[in-house]
């Protein structure tokens, strides 16, 4: 069916819009807004990727392992960059909203892939997509958000740091895409998880430290 991505976007992301008005605090509204933005970016990326596929003579494997990681990461960067330039460059806000955008992107992407492979999906597939793709998109965008947080504080670091982090995100995303389409696909789901384990351990330690101080 044509316009499937648009249909999914309308069904999944748009119902979340009224929730922005209901949420009481600014932060929650912001995170949800960026999740919806992430889904919108995924929708746009779908069209951009189709165009790029045409440019590379329909070589799906080459485009998905080399070109789309670059285009998708660049597209995901734009809303975070805009927010940092216009509203706030507070790192404590930028990194979570970048992460929320990545997750929003992954939700719509997962739905599109689900619809395209309805006959072959399974519970394992769903879990693997959550552990792999969702975390990968979240990690990549959050890393870029970290670089963008220097936009006003330290210009030199903002330009070179964001560029460097973008490159790291390109390669991480591309490596995931290579593995996920190969016979080594289980490794693709271990890769993003390997990034999250130390982060989670660190977060738990910090959380424990804070609660011990306050307690």
């Amino acid at each position, binding site marked *: 069916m044509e316009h499937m991505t648009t249909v999914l976007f309308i069904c999944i992301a748009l119902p979340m819009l009224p929730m922005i008005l209901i949420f009481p605090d600014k932060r929650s509204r912001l995170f949800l807004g960026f999740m919806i933005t992430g889904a919108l970016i995924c929708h746009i990326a779908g069209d951009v990727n189709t165009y790029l596929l045409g440019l590379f003579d329909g070589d799906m494997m080459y485009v998905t*392992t080399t070109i789309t990681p670059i285009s998708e990461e660049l597209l995901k960067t734009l809303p975070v960059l805009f927010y940092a330039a216009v509203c706030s460059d507070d790192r404590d806000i930028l990194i979570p909203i970048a992460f929320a955008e990545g997750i929003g992107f992954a939700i719509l992407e997962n739905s599109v892939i689900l619809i395209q492979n309805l006959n072959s999906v399974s519970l394992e597939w769903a879990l693997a997509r959550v552990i792999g793709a969702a975390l990968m998109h979240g990690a990549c965008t959050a890393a870029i958000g970290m670089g963008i947080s220097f936009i006003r504080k330290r210009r030199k*670091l903002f330009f070179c*740091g964001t560029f*460097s982090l973008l*490159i*790291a995100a*390109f*390669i991480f995303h591309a490596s995931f895409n290579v593995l996920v389409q*190969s016979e080594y696909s289980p490794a693709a789901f271990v890769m993003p998880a390997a990034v999250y384990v130390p982060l989670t351990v*660190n977060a738990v330690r910090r959380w424990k430290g804070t609660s011990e101080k306050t307690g």
Partner: protein
Amino acid sequence: MNTFVLLQLAAAVSACLGFLSGATKYLRPHKPLYASMIVLGTACIMLGHGYTFMRMITGLPVRGIFHVGCLGTVGAFAFFFSSNYGQIDSLVDDGSNSFMKYRALAFLSVILTAGLYILILLSPASNAEKFTDGIVTLSVAAAGYFHLKHIIIPDIDYGVVKCLRLFNVLALIYAVMCMAEMLISAYGRNDLLPAVVIIRCILSVLFVPVMDKGVRKWST
């Protein structure tokens, strides 16, 4: 597995060792950003070689095309450039004319890099390879300028750059090895490739411990 696959694996594993040795110490809040960036640069080397290795074992082509594996080196040098230009350079160079001779001398590295790239352009390599090598050359030239500058510039006021000289020497050798690897590939002298990759492997393991030693010197 053939030699090229093994070399990529060795490069990825050695960079991974370097990265892990620094990640536990520097990738956390309230640590010097300079050190974090060097660690992330090593991560880029690991990711780049890891990606190329994955392409090889999955049967995807790596030669004669543009792929993001080469961006690992670009990312590493972009991080090294950020750390030197964004963090350290203003401590040793106030932009006055008295430092002009050091800037001019450091610029020799850019000229040398450009000269080596001209040799690549004259080689029988494909246009895609020349384009990819061009991107890598740009990052090598930008980072190489600051590595050489921070080796030769006198560091009277703070003594920060003096502590990091050995790291800058290693990074400069790594830059030369990257250019050498591209030249070897462009001219098809694959017999020389293992030696260059082994040197790169050793350097990527050494980056973080050497930088760590320097950072500890300046912070104590």
